């Protein structure tokens, strides 16, 4: 955990309302793991007051990349950053996706901007592991392929990939690949993750999910980001997560 001012190296639009922000972050590079996130101060005043959490989307040389969608005031400010601007980042925070060589096939499911953490996760997958990316969007305009390969799409309006949601896509895909030893990593809106939980529980498939929550601190001091686990205790998404085994939590 470090707090530092870093410089914007690029900030590109890669799809509708979706941007890729690159910052120089040399000192962080040895420590960052896929699934972790940073809590970012998008301004140097009190408006907005709080930091904004963003997953590590990729690492390139001495740089960290964040993929983000413009949804409100904070991300709007971020989208206006230009090369050379400073932002203050706090991280890396949270745990990580647990990658191991045992799975035959890894499936990455991203709902909308939930795709963000996967470019870096893909880079860290052992070469031996096969993977596919299931990318669910509302409409074609949200599609990009930054850092992704083997992508299958689903869209709400049918403009790209199958018309339907990522769980339907997953169901089809699982039949197609006919692998036994599958592991899923997923990130996206809660309704999707809830449906995924039911699906993977029924089929008994290994699955890890990255969860979201409103956060004040991002590192365990505010208790603002609880998630209930299967024992009816609260875990902190920022510290005990954001990645959880889908069996362990109540979504």
């Amino acid at each position: 955990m470090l707090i530092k001012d870093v410089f914007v190296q690029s900030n590109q639009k890669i799809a509708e309302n979706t941007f890729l922000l690159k910052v120089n972050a040399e000192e962080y590079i040895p420590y960052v793991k896929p699934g972790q996130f940073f809590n970012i101060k998008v301004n140097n005043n009190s408006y907005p007051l709080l930091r904004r959490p963003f997953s590590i989307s990729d690492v390139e040389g001495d740089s960290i990349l964040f993929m983000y969608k413009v949804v409100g005031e904070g991300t709007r400010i971020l989208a206006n950053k230009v090369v050379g601007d400073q932002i203050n980042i706090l991280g890396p925070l949270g745990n990580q996706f647990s990658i191991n060589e045992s799975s035959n096939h890894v499936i990455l499911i991203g709902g909308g901007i939930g795709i963000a953490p996967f470019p870096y996760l893909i880079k860290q997958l052992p070469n031996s592991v096969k993977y596919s990316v299931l990318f669910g969007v509302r409409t074609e305009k949200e599609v990009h392929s930054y850092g992704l390969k083997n992508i299958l799409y689903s869209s709400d309006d049918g403009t790209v990939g199958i018309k339907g949601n990522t769980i339907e896509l997953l169901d089809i895909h699982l039949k197609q690949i006919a692998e036994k030893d599958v592991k899923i990593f997923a990130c996206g809106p809660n309704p999707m993750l809830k449906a995924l939980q039911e699906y993977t529980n029924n089929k008994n498939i290994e699955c890890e999910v990255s969860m979201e929550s409103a956060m004040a601190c991002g590192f365990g001091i505010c208790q603002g980001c609880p998630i209930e686990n299967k024992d009816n205790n609260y875990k902190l998404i920022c510290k005990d997560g954001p990645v959880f085994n889908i069996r362990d939590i109540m979504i």
Partner: protein
Amino acid sequence: MSVDLSVNIGSLKLKNPILLASGTVGYGNEISEFVDLSKIGGIVTKSISLKPRKGNPPQRIVETSSGMLNAIGLANVGLELFIKEKIPFLKNLGSTLICNIAASSIEEYVECVDILDKEETIKAFEINVSCPNVKEGGLIFGNDVKAVAKITEKVRGKTSKPIIIKLSPNNSNIVDYAKIAKQEGADAVSAINTLVGTSFDIYSKKPKIKNITGGLSGPAIKPVALAKVLEISKEVDIPIIGIGGIMNWKDAVEFMIVGASAFQIGTANFINPKASMEILDGIKKYCQENTISKISDIIRTRKI
């Protein structure tokens, strides 16, 4: 120029007036990566209750203009675990530990203090009678002068360590609470806890916080907090610990000039975990530049 930054809160001597506010740094574990806890005045622990509390269901926090609402619901590890795990950690770091207690009955306050009084590491108690986010144990006491009197009196009977009563801003007569606290033997009051607030989603029509209302903190409330400190300071002769929206050393100095003997950093820790260390540097420089040899000399130097 060397500056004496120490201040006294009754018999409690602090290295400097900077305290970390209850509920905004847990039990120090995480913040200690950013702050040398032996260098600042002290840490006030997350409110401890007799039994562990799970806290409120999410969503617990929401941002507002220059502020945030929280309804954590006094989630805490409970007395036992606190003694076993948290106290030793803080002791090792050499930090001055002020233990904040929240309870749902007068008896529970008394029992907590009774048990914790034996812990040498604890240098003072801050009694939270002003949490807006739980049905029992919070504002129900904080807005009832008689209850605060009773709690102070009973707790006083159980400890000779300094007692600080943490006051609610959600009433029109904070002075009465400060008076009664003093009368019943409290060594200091801290002001303020959060203001009751809420926020709704205009599409779902639901409150953004599951608990419906939450406590407002951050820079938005600073003017209110300062006015409360001023009010107490004018009417009651008791050390005041100022809290509310302190983001930097200037805010901190403002509180001291208005009447605070020490101050607590809350919400600022979330945004800049190093805020307290930067404030330490800031107040030192302020003293040097204004040739103030003892920071305690600026307390209550307001000119009105």
